[in-house]
């Protein structure tokens, strides 16, 4: 059997990590672009090949209709759930979608687990290149507040990618594992995890016992649709509004400008984590230039509602753990969005202590997943994770009410048994509706599954069927039934309300092989060519700008030579040479790039490559 790796399948970026056999320490794998972060972006080439990560990110602008990001927001959800998001995310949903959303990339249609599977395959290839060993099993992290359908969809993605998913681990729990290992800390820990698209808060107790260390989750809460993406959306809405007010341009008409603006605003947001103000200069398609100086105070005013929304889950999680804020000994911040100073201040004020930021907030979840992978790989261990189910499990009763059978924050695995009988003579079926959520009415909770319990014909009230509902260690529901009179076990086919069935997964697995596993060099070549196209296009665009006239003739000649050399090698198959020539062009155009950014922004953007301007 091959190795087990830990994977953080994120909204914005995904990472893969493994524990180094010699050092015994978890480490994130560096990809072909020199970063441990693989942008969670997938692009389908017209020739049928699939491009993932950094290379796909570059296609967001050039081929938006064939490229998708933030697909995690769609996992385990139905078309009706995502209507609000469609206004802000350029998802193209197949209008034929029924329970499961189907997304269009070019003229092909994919489910969210299939798209996530492309990302998982990419990460596996990174890990295999690093480990020089096959990888066939994985621990994948999910937001703690993910419901059953979202967890099942993540597990399906693993299967479609040909990975055996040994365990789904909650992201804040994974972070605590990496952090606890690092700090050797004991006591109550709060993990505040604000990522690209999801928010989680978990309260843990780290306990030393004679057998080893136990990481016991006491409570968890969150919001699976709250994150850095929302900050981008708020900033975008702010600019759209300003621009529309001036009457100059309506962004809703142009997907491409929306993407371009989003890219600029993300850079601006990152700048504002470091600086007190940042200037947005955005050339509108109608030729006008939109400028706005964002002060940190204005930025914080815009994003304040998002930060405020994280605090009620924090309070609820503490209440469920029966703890006051002062009882928390350590606070850990996870997720790139927690770099925002306003969030750090808010969390610090609430708990009255400085949060830990010594581990890289982007990597800590993947590192924890690798630790858990290592524990499972070795089978015996001196570390144990006890996690909880984030949402109460219930069944629908008379009048559409919900009877809760497993309360939220129950340690998993957890189970509940219910007995059923018939109401009329010779009744052959009993309908059961399983739900997840805290509300009192079925219509306000998340439907997990509906099924009909088969009953042998008998007088009313005579049959005694016991149904066992079990939430496994992945937080996924299993159902079994037993006839108490005969002792016979019934198998129950539970058709998930928002899931894909086994036959479909098998078919997807087969289909994915069509797209999969191109030769490593071939993939590198495709990526290098994509990058070369992007830089050539950017350079051509730059020469159209009037500022480029200021460029000395000898520099212009250097650039022309570098471009010619790149064009020549891009037709060949040596990806290393193409990469080198790309670097040459980047180097030759440094001054040109500086010229293009006029004095006001030059200080902010110094050292950037032309393709990033």
């Amino acid at each position: 059997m091959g190795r087990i790796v830990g994977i953080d399948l994120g909204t914005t970026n995904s990472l893969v990590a493994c524990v180094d056999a010699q050092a015994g320490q978890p480490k994130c794998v560096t990809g072909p672009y020199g970063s441990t972060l693989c942008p969670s972006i997938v692009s389908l080439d017209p020739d049928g090949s699939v491009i993932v990560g950094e290379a796909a990110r570059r296609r967001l602008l050039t081929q938006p209709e064939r490229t998708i990001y933030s697909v995690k927001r769609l996992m385990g959800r139905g078309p009706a759930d995502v209507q609000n998001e469609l206004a802000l995310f350029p998802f193209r949903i197949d209008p034929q979608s029924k329970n499961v959303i189907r997304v269009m990339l070019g003229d092909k249609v994919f489910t969210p687990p299939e798209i996530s599977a492309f990302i998982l395959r990419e990460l596996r290839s990174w890990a295999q290149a690093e480990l020089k060993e096959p990888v066939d099993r994985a621990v994948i992290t999910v937001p703690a507040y993910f419901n059953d359908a979202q967890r099942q969809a993540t597990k399906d993605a693993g299967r479609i990618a040909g990975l055996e998913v040994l365990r789904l681990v909650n992201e804040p729990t994974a972070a605590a594992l990496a952090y606890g290992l690092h700090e050797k800390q004991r006591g109550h820990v709060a993990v505040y995890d604000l990522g690209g698209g999801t928010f989680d808060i978990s309260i843990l107790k780290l306990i030393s016992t004679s057998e080893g260390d136990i990481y016991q989750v006491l409570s968890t809460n969150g919001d699976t649709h709250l994150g850095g993406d929302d900050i981008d959306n708020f900033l975008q809405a702010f600019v759209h509004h300003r621009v529309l007010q001036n009457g100059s341009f309506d962004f809703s008409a142009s997907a491409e400008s929306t993407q371009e603006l989003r890219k600029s605003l993300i850079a601006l947001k990152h700048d504002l984590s470091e600086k007190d103000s940042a200037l947005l200069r955005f050339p509108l398609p109608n030729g006008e230039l939109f400028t706005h100086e964002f002060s940190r105070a204005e930025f914080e005013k815009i994003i304040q509602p998002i930060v405020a929304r994280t605090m009620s889950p924090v309070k609820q999680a503490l209440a469920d753990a029966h703890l006051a804020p002062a009882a928390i000994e350590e606070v850990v911040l996870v997720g790139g969005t927690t770099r925002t100073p306003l969030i750090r201040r808010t969390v610090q004020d609430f708990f009255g202590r400085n949060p830990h930021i010594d581990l890289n907030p982007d990597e800590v979840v993947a590192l924890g997943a690798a630790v858990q992978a290592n524990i499972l790989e070795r089978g015996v261990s001196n570390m144990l994770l006890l996690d909880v189910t984030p949402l109460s499990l219930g069944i629908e009763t008379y009048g559409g009410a919900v009877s809760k059978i497993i309360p939220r924050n129950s340690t998993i695995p957890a189970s509940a048994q219910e007995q059923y009988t018939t109401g009329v003579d010779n009744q052959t079926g009993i309908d059961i509706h399983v739900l997840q959520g805290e509300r009192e009415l079925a219509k306000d909770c998340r439907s997990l599954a509906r099924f009909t319990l088969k009953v042998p014909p008998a007088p009313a009230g005579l049959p005694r069927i016991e149904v066992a509902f079990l939430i496994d260690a992945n937080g996924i529901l299993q159902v079994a039934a037993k006839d108490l009179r005969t002792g016979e076990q019934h198998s129950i086919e539970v058709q998930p309300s928002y899931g894909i069935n086994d036959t479909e997964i098998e078919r997807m697995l087969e289909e994915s092989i069509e797209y999969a596993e191109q030769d490593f060099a071939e993939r590198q070549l495709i990526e290098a060519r994509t990058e070369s196209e992007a830089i050539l296009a950017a350079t051509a665009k730059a020469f159209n700008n009037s500022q480029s006239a200021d460029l000395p003739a000898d520099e212009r000649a250097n650039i022309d030579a570098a471009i010619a050399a790149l064009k020549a090698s891009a037709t060949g198959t040596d990806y290393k040479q193409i990469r080198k020539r790309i670097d040459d062009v980047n180097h030759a155009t440094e001054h040109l790039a500086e010229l293009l950014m006029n004095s006001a922004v030059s200080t902010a953007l110094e050292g950037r490559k032309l393709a990033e301007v």
Partner: protein
Amino acid sequence: MDDLEQKFLQLSWKLHPDIFVNLTEREKEISLERSSKLNDAYRVLRDPVANVEYLLELEGMRKEGEHKQQAPPELLEEVFELNESLDELREARSAGANLDVLTGKLRDAETNFGEKLHEVDAELKTAAQQWDAALDADASDSDREAILQRLNELLNRRSYIRNLVAGVEKELTGAAS
């Protein structure tokens, strides 16, 4: 760490599915079943109310979904007053009137019933201890029956008061927004 928690953690080391991940399907199934039972038991045992509910179910005193919702007689007057205040609040809200006096009154009622809830919890604890003592002393069936009756009454009373408090909370959050 108390005895219960210590025992729970010890058994977790023996039963948790993570420990059986590389073994046969059968062993994994057994671990899943046993560890879920362990977790279910711990959930009930560490919660005094769930503990009593479980005991009454075992003794056949209480069936699921069977909760008496009549007001305990000694609370009738206060409950009547509370319901009146709630009605007034709803009326005042739909008329757009100032709600400050009424919400203040309801907050007082909420505190009052919150205290009663604590009283019931204390009484439940005493009765549960009496049950344990009766078992240890090998008490007669009728003595045991009397304690179970008392526990059942207290649970019903508790669930009634808790619903009242939840109802008031709901109205008050409605008033605040």
